[in-house]
């Protein structure tokens, strides 16, 4: 009995109530336990990743009920690497939230943070479609709390929209699950895949509706155009460390698309032929384009980074929508990259906003401008897919994987032009924020009359050292991801291979009687 599989869910599920009950009035203890929890989660994630690396697919039957009757968790390479990414992302973010004092600007930050981790890990691990819905809801509701953390009228207003839009999405999820259950009579993803494959060819329409609705739900989460509208305002208005954490949320959507599609709704299955191919790729291309345009047009740094998130989702989904092993390997590498890069940039945006506000207009110079601009530069390079960071590698991988696709020209054109627009947009923003403030006209320091006032304000974080360390850690993560791109790709290639041989997954879940 390998209880490690359920640990990424149970650990936060126990830690968060503990924080609420026992540590409610002790912020310092909350912080210590929260960080310790994340570190433990990393440990767990490393353990299960090591277990999954061998290629065996392990199944955890909750309640000791066999699949498909009970809920099972499934540990394969993909779920392991996603859980690991979640844990790795969480550490610098929680450190930053502590260092910046964000966790103290409202109640229950750490509890909600861990509940969010629980939802995300659960979504990655579960092998049951309805349980996936439940974990979606867990991570969503935690995100509602985190998004509105600290209040403020604009944030709350954006919060209302965010919640309303996602509630529509959740409703759609239920419509989809209902339809699928009504047709297949099961909820277990592997079992569903088996039944979909066996569905009589003369009665596919209703299943197809269910399948397409389900994919749409995942596309909402993955912010695919035209279902991305929840993202810009909410990411831009959320506390930015939270927005950084949200970088993993869109990946849950991408993960789910990949999982369901490779498992049972692929084109080789007669019942679901042509369901995705027709629109997902164009939608992904438009997503990238709109994201890039958004970056160029943004007037606020947080909004700009939000569009960076959309752009990177566009690239990721282009790779996913190719649905080949190579492209999937590329996509999985890109998942790591884009998650870390987006999160890094949100944290940098927070550093900027805390010092000078977020508007992309020149103002007086801010404290620690040099350090922050260097970090911004790193993030911008990563997000624009410029060398030498992982974004470039990821972009090359995607381009390379797309070269045999029927629409390779369009894909290449959109990715490359998108990169160009992103570069121009980020350069423009960086120059306005970091350089133009050195203009004499904004440089109030040179004004002898109010030299006193113009002295650079002390860093707004209670603990700038830790804050910068957290951001640096993320940058170093990107560097490592680049340096060890070889082994990383080896893993993702094996993961893709595992995904494209779903028989093993199905056999592992259903006990081999397929």
């Amino acid at each position: 009995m390998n209880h490690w599989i359920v640990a990424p869910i149970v650990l936060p599920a126990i830690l968060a109530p503990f924080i609420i009950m026992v540590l409610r009035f002790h912020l310092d203890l909350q912080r210590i336990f929260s960080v310790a929890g994340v570190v433990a989660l990393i440990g767990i994630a490393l353990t299960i990743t090591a277990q999954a690396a061998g290629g065996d697919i392990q199944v955890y039957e909750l309640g000791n009920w066999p699949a498909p009757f009970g809920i099972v968790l499934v540990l394969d390479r993909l779920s392991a690497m996603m859980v690991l990414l979640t844990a790795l992302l969480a550490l610098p973010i929680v450190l930053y939230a502590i260092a910046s004092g964000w966790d103290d600007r409202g109640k229950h930050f750490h509890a909600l943070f861990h509940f969010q981790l629980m939802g995300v890990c659960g979504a990655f691990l579960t092998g049951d479609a309805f349980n996936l819905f439940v974990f979606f809801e867990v991570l969503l509701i935690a995100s509602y709390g985190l998004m509105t953390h600290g209040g403020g009228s604009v944030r709350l207003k954006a919060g209302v929209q965010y919640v309303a839009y996602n509630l529509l999405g959740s409703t759609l999820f239920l419509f989809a699950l209902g339809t699928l259950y009504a047709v297949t009579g099961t909820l277990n993803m592997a079992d569903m895949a088996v039944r979909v494959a066996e569905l009589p060819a003369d009665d596919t329409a209703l299943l197809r509706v269910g399948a397409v609705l389900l994919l749409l739900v995942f596309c909402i989460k993955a912010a695919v155009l035209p279902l991305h509208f929840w993202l810009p305002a909410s990411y831009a208005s959320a506390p930015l460390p939270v927005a950084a954490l949200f970088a993993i949320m869109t990946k849950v959507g991408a993960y789910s698309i990949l999982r369901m599609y490779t498992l049972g709704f692929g084109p080789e299955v007669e019942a679901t032929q042509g369901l995705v191919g027709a629109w997902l790729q164009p939608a992904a291309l438009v997503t990238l384009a709109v994201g890039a345009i958004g970056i160029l047009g943004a007037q606020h740094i947080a909004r700009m980074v939000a569009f960076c998130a959309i752009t990177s989702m566009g690239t990721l989904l282009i790779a996913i929508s190719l649905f080949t092993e190579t492209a999937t390997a590329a996509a999985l590498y890109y998942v790591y990259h884009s998650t870390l890069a987006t999160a890094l940039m949100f944290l940098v945006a927070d550093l900027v906003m805390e010092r000078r506000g977020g508007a992309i207009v020149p103002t007086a110079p801010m404290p620690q401008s040099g350090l922050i601009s260097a970090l911004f530069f790193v993030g911008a390079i990563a997000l624009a897919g410029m060398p030498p960071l992982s974004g470039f590698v990821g972009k090359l991988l995607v381009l390379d994987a797309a070269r045999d696709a029927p629409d390779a020209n369009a894909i290449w054109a959109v990715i490359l032009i998108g990169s160009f627009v992103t570069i121009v947009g980020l350069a423009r923003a960086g120059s306005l924020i970091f350089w133009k403030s050195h203009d004499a006209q904004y440089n109030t320091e040179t004004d002898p009359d109010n030299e006193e006032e113009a002295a650079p304000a002390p860093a707004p974080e209670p603990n700038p050292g830790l804050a910068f360390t957290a951001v640096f850690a993320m940058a170093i993560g990107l560097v490592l991801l680049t340096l060890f791109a070889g082994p990383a790709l080896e893993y993702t290639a094996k993961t893709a291979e595992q995904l494209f041989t779903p028989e093993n997954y199905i056999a592992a879940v259903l006990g081999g009687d397929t």
Partner: protein
Amino acid sequence: MSLFLIAALPFLGAVFPALLIRAGRNAAASAAGLTTFLALMGLLIHIPSVMRGDVVTARFEWIPALGLNANFMLDGLGFLFALLILGIGLLIILYARFYLSREDPMGQFYTYLLLFQGAMVGIVLSDNILLLLVFWELTSLSSFLLIGYWKHLPEGRQGARMALAVTGSGGLAMIAGMLILGNIVGSYDLSVILQNKELIQASPYYLPALILILLGCFTKSAQFPFHFWLPHAMAAPTPVSAYLHSATMVKAGLFLMARMWPVLAGTDAWFYIVATTGLITMLMGAVIALFKDDLKALLAFSTVSHLGLVTMLLGFGTKFAAVAAIFHIINHATFKAALFMTAGIVDHETGTRDIKRLGGLRHLMPITFTIGTIAALSMAGIPPLNGFLSKEMMLEETVHTTWLHSHYLVPGLALLAALFSAAYSFRFVSHVFLGPERHDYPAHPHDPPVGLWLAPAFLVVLVVLIGLNSAAIVGPLVAVVSSAVIGGEKLPYYSLKLWHGFTPALYMSVVATLGGLFLLSLHRHEEKIWNALPRPEAKVIFDTVISVLTRLSRLITDTLHNGVLSRYAIIMIGFTLALGYYAYTTGTIGPETRKALPIQIIPLIGWICLVGATLAIMWFHRNRLLSLVLIGVVGLIVSMAFNYLSAPDLALTQISVEVVTMILLLLSLNFLPTDTPWDSSAARRWRDAAISVVAGIGSGALIYALLLRDFAFPTISEFHLANSYKGGGGTNVVNVILVDFRGFDTFGEIIVLGIAALIIFALTEAVLGTNVRSYLLNRKPHWPQSGDSHPLMMVVVTRMMMPIALMVGAYIFFRGHNQPGGGFIAGLVVAIAFLMQYMASGYTWAIERQRFYYHGSIGWGVLIAAATGLGAWFNDRPFLTSDFGYIHWPPLEEFEWATAILFDTGVFLAVLGAVMLALDSLSRFAWQPGMAQEFPMDINPLRDNQPQEEENKEQV
């Protein structure tokens, strides 16, 4: 020294200046210099093998899956460029140390410079085109930092952005080109690619690859029409201009063309694209340079012109031209770097770079004058300087070139360019140094310290020496490099000497020199004409384009994301409907297999009420209270429908949740406006209604279709029905599914509920922490309030009801496993029992009597549920494995125990805590001073009597 180390040294060294700057400017400069020197030495070690024509390699598998490997190679071509980069880099480091002022952050400067240097070295040593791309883009990035180094200068920022935009976009095009190339060949390794000329040139993808790669080269090397960024990059400090824009970065494009020459050159496409571009650029650059008053701008356009020259030579595609190109690259690097440094010295000493304000410096700055004049004459192509030699070779080659059957076009235009080239070179000398000494220089000029002039002087010495005896000094180098460029084939006949006899090239040189002098003499008049001519200002165009793009992007983005939720929702719903319809119509629908149940009268009445209430909500939605009441009706009927359709558990849950939701909405409606104003037009409402109806038809049709068809497969719930009692110990299968078969869902569900309550609590705290609090304290109610807020009868009745309600809660809880009910509904019932006390007797009074703590209830609930699940671990069973059994304690009858009850207790506590916390939090908004009261009921006749009795007692 390993090639890895040579390429890596500048990057490693880049760390030091930034760190050492605290130790002083010299430390930083020394660190940079030492790094470069070491790298240079490492390079020079390889001279013997390079000169032998060997290729030194170093390989490392970086990303084998992609074919992106850290493979380096050093051949003649790479050696030459590496030598230029490191050699001139060393000189620039020296020069910059004295050039930059005290205010400039020098550590940063050297860091950027070394990063750039490393990227350049990487380009020229790469044996993998993807790796080359990495370094290629790195040069764009590092040059962006260098050009924008003086952050306070708007020209610097704009120039940097322009350079990045142009070279970056070229780089992106090149990525595509390189990928195509690699795809054709099947490898990204240069050494492999260079072996496959036929394969490449025969491929249908040759032309796209060529164009895309050339886009990268042309943008980098400032070829027409991408030349415009270069002059604006001159806003950089002069050492940067000298390094990037004469010796290195702009030559990267040339390097790449030379590098790819063996496989790309030799076709018509190559010739017409590359040679024509080069020719136009050469001519245009030369003409513009003549009319630039800014010294650095003059040099910048001259650079453009000379880059065009080399490009043209490479474009000719002949071996001789390739040799000439290589030779001119060497020569240009020497004299142009010297010229930039000279210009920098002039600027540094006089305080201006404006030719109009200069002149007569010959006597004041004799050393500078000498250096500048020699370099300029070399640029003009005057013998015996090195510029002359390569220019001769160029002119010679043009004579043999036919452009679309025309024999005269290329030589003619080349001559014209040479003529302008001579003119601006002479102008550099005469308008800066010659003429009468002036008295209005912004600063008092004199020759700079040796540190500043040493580097250009060294270069000028090279200029002269190469001119005088090129064969000895650079002959072997040119041979090796040329051999590398032409792909190891046999070198053509050429000789690097001053005198070739009376060749057409010589005549052309003479014409160019004389013509140049003549042009210069008429400069004032020409200038008038030039200024009168309309000509596009690249910067204005670029700025306009970027700002239009930016504004357009903003427009698109803001129009698309205009913050209107209904639009977002319509798009989502429309997209969903369209795809759903598509999925349906592309599938096949089987026949109906189930017979519909007959419609009975009561369900029909229920249906009428439900539809009526729903339509009424749509119609009257502006009246919020009415809509709420009607929603209640809908909820009630839905609950009844669940009962009717054999789902009593659902009915119970639905109605309980319904009431709590209604209370929540009422609590919030207390603060919100009570009516929704009209704020959408009739047309909009009709549109919305149309979409809604389509969506309604969609969902209705879908479920109708499903309802009339059987499952295609046996459902898994057959297992649940069969095992509920045997394996789960309960007869209420729905409950057993909830707490056992799918207990994990329920676990997630209570967490959702708990989180909801936490959020509500946190938001309450957040909102009450702002000035909203004072607004709330002074808020006037929507309408006048009645007296008697806690009526006596209500208080009494709730007191009577409370124990019964708790009893009912307990009942619902305990029987859930076997009959409709369970922890969730029990939690709601108990919560409502407490809530009634709040409503009846007042918040303050009730809270004082509260014996439990909501956060704790939620926390314990989740923990108990989790602990129940974890308990199974000790049995070596998975999380949430349940157990049950029977106990017989006489005289009691046998009764059942099940761990599921414990799990349900967790559910119960979490629900209770969550509901109470949510309601409690919302209630806090309503709190106003004077509300807290001692007594649960406003009117209590008994209370009025008691004080009298007490008084009476006292009297007695």
